[in-house]
């Protein structure tokens, strides 16, 4: 840094910092944090995409509120979209058409809003996969995981309330389904539906109510939770992948100022720009095609936004069970796919870090990410959940698949029902086995180095395959594996004959622990690794005479079908002889 006289900008910056500091003491914070280190990895961008697309959602959404009229009062449309001229519709739908056709740039902002919302949920989902499969949720980050699960649920709520607002035929059908779902809840469902809709469906209250939820309640909570989410990341420092110089006690990466700030700030504009381009070039939710909502019409091929698809699929694949118990009706066919399954899924997600910690007995802090293969059961559970979700999601498009590929919708649904039961366990077993196989491979590499694929005949006639030592980077990554062991089996009564009062819980924990850890492939000790790598180096060294010839800068010539460098000896023995 040179003198400030040469840099008026810095002078102003310095003066501003001083001015603010005298009033807020802000330089104490800046001094500690401007150099804060953030590790770098492509997968760390996923959460950033979620954050940035949310900012775009807020910006574009604010613009839309200036023109949108959340009212279900019926009006006659008289705007510039000719096919709907003279049609009766709600003010909500009319104002959405107005935004799309009358307001310049309105359609762009509307489409950017929709695209960024879709990207928001997608980025959250993939970000969550990354966190789960690398074990980033482990101590001390369990709270942040729960906040993340909450944000995921809220993102779904924000999306659904949003695309219900234009009151077009598609969104109204979605609301009709919501009414059916509410009515399926035992005991309170019917009243809940009447309270939510302000009476019978569709009524005239639902759009204004969803509007309040969509523009104030849900985004307010999301914003608060994002703040908490980021503050926890800041306080706990970001996790990092294993690699040279990276330990559980340090954080290796780029300082906040300038590199991280430039990259992250730049990336915001990249995300913003891509959303703007998509909004300009790719049509999303063309509400003018669907027409205004009326409860007695529907269009074939009705599809919700992608993140609701799995719930729609669950409804499609559920058998048609309903029972009347003591005169009361319970619609299992609606309740299970839309209330019970999502309830179990989100509760399971939220509790998973605690379950795993309890089962493995792991109470240490983890800042170094775990490779998915090194936690086969966790990875297996994750893939199982994704397969289950994926089949439901495909189920949500069974009609599209049927019409596109000219297949029987009944056959598709039946097949998916069977896959839904059989697929997840199969996925679990395959995933776990793959992980264990990779663990064994890693152990091999640590103990013997790489198989080079080159076979060498030694002077005394022995054939060996040349093994090469791992490079320092692979070594750091592979040797980062940490072994956990199955918890000791509980005893029913101790040596003094005192009964263990917690025996049943201990037994359950022991079984769970065994489920998680019993198949672990032990990492070699540091000494074994050192010996193994040294041995591999030695084997590679035997090849050295050959390598010397490769360095000759001469074109190889054909020689009886075999490539030879001129003067290159044909046998290993000859080489050895020549060197002597």
């Amino acid at each position, binding site marked *: 840094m040179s003198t400030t006289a040469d840099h008026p900008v810095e002078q102003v910056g310095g003066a501003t910092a001083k001015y603010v500091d005298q009033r807020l003491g802000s330089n104490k914070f800046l*001094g500690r944090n401007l*150099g804060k*280190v953030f590790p770098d990895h492509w997968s760390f961008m996923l959460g950033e995409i979620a954050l940035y697309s949310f900012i775009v959602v807020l910006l574009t959404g604010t613009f839309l509120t200036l023109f949108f009229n959340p009212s279900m009062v019926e009006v006659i449309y008289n705007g510039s979209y000719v096919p709907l001229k003279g049609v009766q519709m709600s003010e909500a739908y009319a104002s959405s058409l107005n935004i799309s056709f009358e307001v310049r*740039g309105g359609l762009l902002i509307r*489409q950017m809003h929709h695209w960024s919302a879709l990207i928001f949920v997608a980025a959250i989902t993939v970000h969550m996969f990354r966190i789960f499969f690398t074990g980033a949720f482990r101590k001390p980050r369990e709270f942040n995981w729960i906040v993340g699960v909450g944000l995921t649920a809220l993102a779904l709520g924000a999306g659904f309330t949003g695309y219900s607002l234009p009151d077009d035929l598609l969104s109204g059908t979605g609301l*009709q389904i919501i*009414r059916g779902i509410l*009515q399926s809840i035992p005991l309170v469902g019917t009243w809940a539906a009447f*309270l939510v*809709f*302000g009476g*019978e*469906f*569709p*009524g005239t*209250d639902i759009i204004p109510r969803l509007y309040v939820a969509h523009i104030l309640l849900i985004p307010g909570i999301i914003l608060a939770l994002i703040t908490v989410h980021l503050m926890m990341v800041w*306080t706990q420092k970001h996790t990092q992948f*294993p690699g*040279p*110089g990276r*330990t559980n*006690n*340090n954080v*290796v990466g*780029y*300082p906040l100022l300038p*590199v991280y700030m*430039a*990259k992250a700030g*730049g*990336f*915001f504009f*990249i995300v*913003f*720009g*891509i*959303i703007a*381009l998509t*909004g*300009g070039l790719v049509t999303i939710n063309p509400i003018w095609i669907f027409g205004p909502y*009326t*409860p*007695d*019409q*529907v269009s*074939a*091929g*009705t599809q919700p936004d992608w993140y609701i698809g799995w719930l*729609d699929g669950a*409804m499609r694949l559920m058998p048609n069970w309903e029972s009347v118990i003591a005169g009361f*009706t*319970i*619609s299992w*066919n*609606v309740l299970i796919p839309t209330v019970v399954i999502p309830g179990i899924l989100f509760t399971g997600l939220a509790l998973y870090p605690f379950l795993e910690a309890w089962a493995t007995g792991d109470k240490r802090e983890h800042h170094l990410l775990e490779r998915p293969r090194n936690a086969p059961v966790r990875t297996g559970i994750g893939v199982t959940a994704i397969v289950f979700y994926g089949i439901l999601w495909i189920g949500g498009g069974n*009609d599209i698949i049927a019409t596109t590929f000219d297949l029987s*919708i009944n056959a598709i649904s039946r097949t998916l029902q069977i896959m839904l039961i059989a697929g997840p366990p199969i996925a679990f077993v395959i995933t776990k086995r793959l992980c264990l196989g990779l663990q064994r491979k890693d152990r091999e590499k640590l103990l013997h180095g790489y198989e080079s694929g080159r076979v060498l005949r030694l002077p005394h006639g022995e054939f060996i395959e040349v093994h090469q030592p791992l490079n320092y980077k692979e070594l750091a990554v592979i040797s*980062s594996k940490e072994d956990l062991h199955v918890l000791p089996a509980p005893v029913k009564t101790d040596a003094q004959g005192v009964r263990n009062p917690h025996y049943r819980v201990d037994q359950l924990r022991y079984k769970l622990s065994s489920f998680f850890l019993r198949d672990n492939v032990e990492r070699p000790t*540091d000494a074994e*690794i050192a010996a193994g790598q040294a041995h591999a180096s030695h084997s590679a060294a035997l090849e050295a005479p050959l390598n010397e010839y490769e360095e000759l800068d001469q074109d190889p010539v054909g020689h009886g079908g075999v490539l030879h460098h001129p003067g290159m000896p044909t046998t290993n023995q000859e080489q050895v002889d020549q060197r002597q």
Partner: protein
Amino acid sequence: MNKITPSAGDNDELGHDEHGLAPAKLGYSPVAEIPHRLRVTDTDPKAARRAERQVASMFTLSMVFVMLSVVAYVMIDKATIVYIPVLGEVGASNVALGLTFGIAVFLIGAGAIQWAKKLMPDVEVVQQRHDMVSDKEEDNLAAADYERGKEESGFARYKIIRRSLLGAMALFPIPIIVVLRDLWITPPGENPRELLSNTLWTKGKRIVSDGTYLPVRPEDLPVGGLVSALPEGILEAQEEDHNLNARGKAAIVLVRMDPDQIRSQQGEGWDYNGILAYSKICTHVGCPTALYEQRTHHLLCPCHQSTFDLADSGAVIFGPAARNMPQLPITVDEEGYLIATQDFAEPVGPSFWERDRA
């Protein structure tokens, strides 16, 4: 031999001032073991200047595109439709605004990242972590303060205060929930079960076709045909109620089939010469069912593919719906128009808790 344990790289005391900053003060230093390959821009001043020019031109171009965006806003009429290959017929204003603004914003990001990658230091640095748990000293301080507070407030001593406070705290949210009761200002004498069980259909109510709202005669319906229909007076009811609730319950489909093909129906003689009226609202979650296959007499709901056999009492033959589609008994009046002979015998649409209460 390389270091093999992850802890081997824990080496922050090797501080080098490669940033022109003061690493000691900022608390980080380059990592000894992390190899660092110099970039072209580090070694070749020409390349560095080229990168500088690239970054600056991206920022400059961004300004140009912002101006173009404003020009597009002013110049392009919002109604102009243009044909663009791949995209098809699109609004010119939307595409122009999206393109210009999108590129402008993207270029800012691309410039910043290029700057960071080519010109800012790319040496990774190390910072130490500390356990999240508080020091013993801070921990003791907090515990002591807490104890003092507890003692001074007498929270532990005044049992009756403590319990009554807990009770008060538990109860005070109740009114906040109670006031939500009037989310539905219930008209006197009405309850959800009654409302869900009754529709606009009554004895003698004429059936009008959806769209034209004209009464339907049997001869208007060809065999194999399906018509969406509503009760006469639906528009007046909507006008009066200012909502679409009546329509949401009363919508029906009229189908005509060869009377011999009707295997069963929900009541004796509920058809009229092979014309059957069924609710249009799916018994699953209430989507309007609209897809009719005349050969098989199957009515399919497009939302979740529940399929009803209209020749067999509207029975569910596939999909997640649990109940038959409710049938509306019909006949003709003296003028020859189709009419209902009564309301539906059961609630239409999705099930609900009190549905089967006697």
